[in-house]
């Protein structure tokens, strides 16, 4: 419910700006900042030629955020350019994912969209080699406990974040789009197979439909909800992009091949409910697979419910997401082993402190 104004804006920008009261604009500015969506709102208005119709104060805050987003765009391009020589020599497809891919392709979803790191997907058998090369390019992993390192290596789908010692850029190097600890086996070979190379670059980008699939998997097969509103807006924009590129039918085929139908269908159900997205409605009628309405309703409750119901939905979502991400044996091990490992470290530190006197 704390997002309602933002959501209203993205559902119907024209209607929103015509009816928003000054009090609502005050709250809107606040919400947009909290979710890092101010610049995104600015570009939505710019694309619809509505900027002149919003109050000057709102426009100026939008412009301020747009300058920041513009800087991020340059920072990403500059960083990718620094990495070209490395990735040109690894002899495997290197895919930009999520925000970096949207931005590199200049898709409308990327206009004013902020991102914290650069996500890159490489084949599993090359991830160590590429990581080691990144070390020579000034990237390093943060210090972490042995347990966390073990977790990343065995069950996660990515290397621990790599941060550049000078520029502070963070690279998330993935070998999969979903944790390998899960019982759910997602086939990501089509991502590599259909990826398109960016002209003059060593990097490739997934097809629009695959970008949508990845975003749907990220939201619907995991427990994270702290960026829910941003995730939902991304999904809506990505589905519209998939439609623009005439990949809607192909999207359903790909969801089937990759074994991610439920994420795609559930995402479409939510988009049809929240945004009345026509492409989403079309997808729902084009497939025999019914959406899991309770899953979609949980998402809508988290987005639009009152304090208590949204809280309840978040708890259920958390349990569901963890259950999907890890097979129960691993989840149980993780639940017990993580506190044990950290308390062991804690005891060791106390012991060392006593010994030091």
């Amino acid at each position, binding site marked *: 419910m704390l997002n309602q104004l933002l959501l209203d804006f993205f559902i119907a920008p024209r209607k929103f700006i015509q009816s928003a009261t000054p009090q*609502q604009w*005050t709250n809107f500015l*606040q919400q947009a900042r*909290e979710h890092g969506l101010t610049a995104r709102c600015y570009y939505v208005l710019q694309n619809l030629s509505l900027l002149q119709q919003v109050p000057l*104060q709102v426009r100026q805050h939008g412009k301020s955020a747009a300058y920041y987003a513009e800087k991020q765009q340059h920072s990403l391009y500059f960083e990718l350019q620094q990495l070209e020589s490395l990735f040109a020599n690894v002899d495997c497809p290197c895919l930009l994912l999520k925000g970096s891919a949207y931005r590199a392709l200049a898709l409308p979803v990327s206009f004013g969209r902020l991102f914290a790191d650069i996500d890159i997907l490489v084949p599993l058998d090359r991830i160590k080699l590429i990581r080691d090369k990144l070390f020579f390019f000034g990237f390093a992993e943060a210090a972490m406990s042995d347990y966390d390192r073990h977790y990343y290596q065995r069950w996660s789908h990515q290397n621990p974040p790599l941060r550049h010692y000078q520029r502070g850029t963070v690279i998330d190097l993935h070998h999969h789009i979903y944790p390998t600890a899960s019982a759910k086996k997602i086939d990501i070979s089509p991502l590599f197979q259909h990826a398109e190379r960016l002209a003059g670059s060593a990097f490739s980008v997934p097809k629009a439909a695959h970008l949508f699939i990845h975003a749907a998997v990220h939201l619907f097969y995991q427990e994270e909800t702290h960026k829910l509103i941003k995730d939902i807006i991304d999904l809506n924009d990505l589905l519209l992009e998939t439609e623009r590129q005439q990949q809607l039918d192909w999207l359903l085929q790909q969801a089937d091949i990759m074994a991610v139908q439920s994420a795609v269908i559930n995402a479409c159900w939510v988009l049809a409910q929240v945004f009345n997205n026509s492409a989403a409605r079309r997808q729902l009628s084009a497939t025999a697979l019914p959406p899991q309405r309770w899953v979609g309703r949980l998402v809508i409750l988290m987005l639009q419910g009152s304090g208590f119901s949204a809280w309840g939905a978040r708890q259920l979502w958390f349990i569901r997401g963890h259950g999907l991400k890890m097979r129960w044996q691993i989840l149980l091990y993780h639940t017990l082993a993580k506190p044990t490992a950290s308390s062991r470290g804690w005891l060791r530190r106390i012991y060392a402190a006593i010994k030091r006197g």
Partner: protein
Amino acid sequence: MLHQSLRYKSLILTDFVINTVPFSVLVSSRSQALHTAVSQLYPPQLVLAPEPEKIYDFCLTVERKWAGWGRPYHVSAGQQHFRMTDSAQVVPVFEWGFNWCIASYQHQYLAIHAAVLERHGKALIMPAPPGSGKSTLCAAMMLEGWRLLSDEMCLVDLTDGSIVPCVRPVSLKNQSLKLVQSWYPSAQIRQITTGTTKGTVGYLLPLADSWQARGQTATAAWVVFPQYNVNQTQLQLSPISKADAFMHLANNSFNYAVLAEHGFNSLGRLTQQIQAYRLEYADIKQALSELSQLC
């Protein structure tokens, strides 16, 4: 729905606004003491009840919570937490919170860490790091009749290059509080708080003319980089090259890096129209007289 929830919230929290320009703030706080303190720092026509027809740039909440041990007051902007504090330091922490909002979200201006004062429509910009005596010098200049635009935030309009005022109470620290009061016994310094992370902090109230002209922009004319140096026997005012001035201004900017070529162009235009000097001084009276002759 949200509107209703905020209304509900306002039944519990006292809302008031500070109508400063170019940024205003809506404050939700249960602490009557904060409202009283703010009323001492800002003129009465700026501290008001929220008006339904106005948009406020920032929202700050100052709330007492259970969590926080000895520092139960939480200052935050919505879900974004700024700092916790005990009741004795609520006022400076609130002021820093307001600064934090401005510093984080003002990229429609090129923002330089500098004091700005004006005479005859022309602005004197004094960028300097903490410890250079900038605030003390700025306070003294205002009390000598210069109009204050800001004691630490020089906002340059990216479209027309004008200097936009951001009038707020002048934050003075430690020794500077005593000095300013001893030089100007009529200076009104309020809300002196000891033991903050920056030592003792107090606020010098801007004079009426500075408050009244708070929306009036000025044209950049001089940039002086001040450095207080107790061993400086003779005041030195040395001209510096514009390229040097440009680089120093860029290094003192909060958002030159974010604004990239827009920042470069804006700062270039500003540097083109100013004269730049380095000022080293030990005696404030000498510094004031020198700046008065220069400008």
